[in-house]
């Protein structure tokens, strides 16, 4: 899987330092290029604001606290969508995983629907639920449902039969089996499904706010783009990217910690 790629482990310490240096200079070069393009080479501020302007806009946004309503709305939509997809995804995934027959019949169907870009449902949801929060929650829940349900199925079916046999031979009741073998065994894969679901839910909610909405962080960025307040828009982009990155980092951390629990 492509998602499994991690940077190679660093060699000795001096090489790690060179690596870090190359990374920092690369990012610094990008920053310098941005500064030069806007301040020296006269690139149009409609395409790219000056970095110092974007920065002062960011300070202004953070200082005034005007981002709170949009942020809370987006996070609220995210929480709603994720609660729905988690409940449905884990429940349905567990039920399907109960019999190899169900897995054989339903897993390909679910995987097949997952291959469709679900963003296509957005116009439909807008028709059903309007431009408000409900269409965002519906879309976020739909999109994040699939990685969660598929990973839950994979989690429960991937458990080594040997563990189940061993537990049964020691007289484990179905409840004990579930509590002490099946759930701990399936948890790492389910958690990675939940993390993937969380990430795509966040993406699709910001995405649907961008495409069709009345409020929220995505909508704010579009509004600023349409009124050509590019400096402020950049500041918001940075803001959203940082929020998204921190949320993802928190979720990944949670996943890593729970997966390592014995």
């Amino acid at each position, binding site marked *: 899987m*492509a*998602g499994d*790629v991690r*940077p190679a482990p660093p*060699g000795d310490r001096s090489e790690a330092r060179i690596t870090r240096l190359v990374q920092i200079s*690369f990012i610094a070069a990008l920053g310098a290029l941005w500064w030069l393009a806007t301040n020296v080479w006269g690139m149009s501020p409609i*395409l790219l604001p000056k970095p110092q302007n974007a920065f002062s806009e960011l300070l202004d946004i953070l200082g005034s606290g005007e981002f709170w309503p949009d942020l809370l709305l987006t996070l609220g939509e995210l929480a709603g969508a994720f609660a729905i997809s988690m409940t449905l995804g884990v429940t349905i995934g567990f039920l399907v995983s109960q019999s190899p027959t169900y897995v054989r*019949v339903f897993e390909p169907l679910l995987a097949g629907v997952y291959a469709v870009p679900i963003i296509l449902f957005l116009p*439909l949801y807008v028709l059903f639920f309007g431009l408000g929060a409900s269409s965002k929650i519906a879309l976020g829940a739909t999109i994040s449902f699939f990685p969660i349900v598929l990973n839950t199925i994979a989690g429960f079916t991937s458990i080594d039969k040997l563990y189940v046999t061993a537990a049964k031979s020691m007289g484990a009741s179905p409840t004990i089996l579930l509590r002490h073998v099946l759930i701990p065994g399936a948890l790492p894969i389910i958690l990675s499904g939940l993390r993937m679901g969380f990430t795509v839910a966040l993406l699709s909610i910001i995405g649907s706010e961008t*495409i069709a909405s009345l409020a929220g962080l995505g909508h704010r960025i579009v509004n600023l783009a349409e009124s050509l307040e590019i400096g402020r828009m950049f500041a918001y982009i940075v803001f959203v990217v940082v929020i998204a990155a921190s949320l993802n980092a928190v979720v990944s951390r949670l996943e890593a910690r729970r997966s390592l629990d014995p």
Partner: protein
Amino acid sequence: MRARAPITGFMARHPRLSQLATIALFLLVWEITARFFVDKMFLSPPSRVYSEIDRVLNTKGLMQALTLTLYELSAAFVIAVAIGMAIGLSVGLNAFARRCFMPIILLLYGIPQIVILPLFILGLGIGPPSKIAFGVTHGIFPIILAIVAGVQNLKPVLLTSARSMGANRWHVLRYVVLPHMMPSFFSGLRLGMTGVLLGVLLAELYVSTAGIGYFTGLFTQNFDPTRLLGLISILAAMAIALNEFMRTVERRFSRWRGND
């Protein structure tokens, strides 16, 4: 042992048929809901969507928009593959480059790109260029990651063995590295296609004054679920067809993996 319900027994004997039955059941529920329980301004039964699909295709300008979307998809895919392969190989084949740039690539991949979509439109306009570019930035990362992973997971003993038999650098690249990365290359292509589809469709839906986005907006505002569902079905069919095509190609090139 639990007694099996008769329905489970049927499923076990006819998994294919059960899948079709599930789809049929879904369509039936949809049909009944749409006919008897939901206002026809919001939902159309599948039978009507199907029988009126020509009305969708006859909508003035829609065929052109679909063709244009297909063109954007192919252009974005070709560009994403070309650039993604170049970056993937140059970063993947060199351990130092991998350590330097993989964290940056992963960082960029983690950015919710949708927030910069308005920038693409501002910079490149509402026509194909912005949509192609947005498709490329979505498709390129899975391709890079797949190629880097493909180059990386090579068993060292295969390289040692090739060298012990006298293989030169070209031999190693042509007969060891390249065939080894073929399966991940093709799964990268498939994931890249998924990304390109997402990027192009996002951009298409975002621009409401032209292309697909114009028509979805139009049908939504006219409360015309028949045509909206028709258009979405066509696009979904397009996506599934492209995906299946990539999967077939992928299977074709990883036959040797079959019984490993």
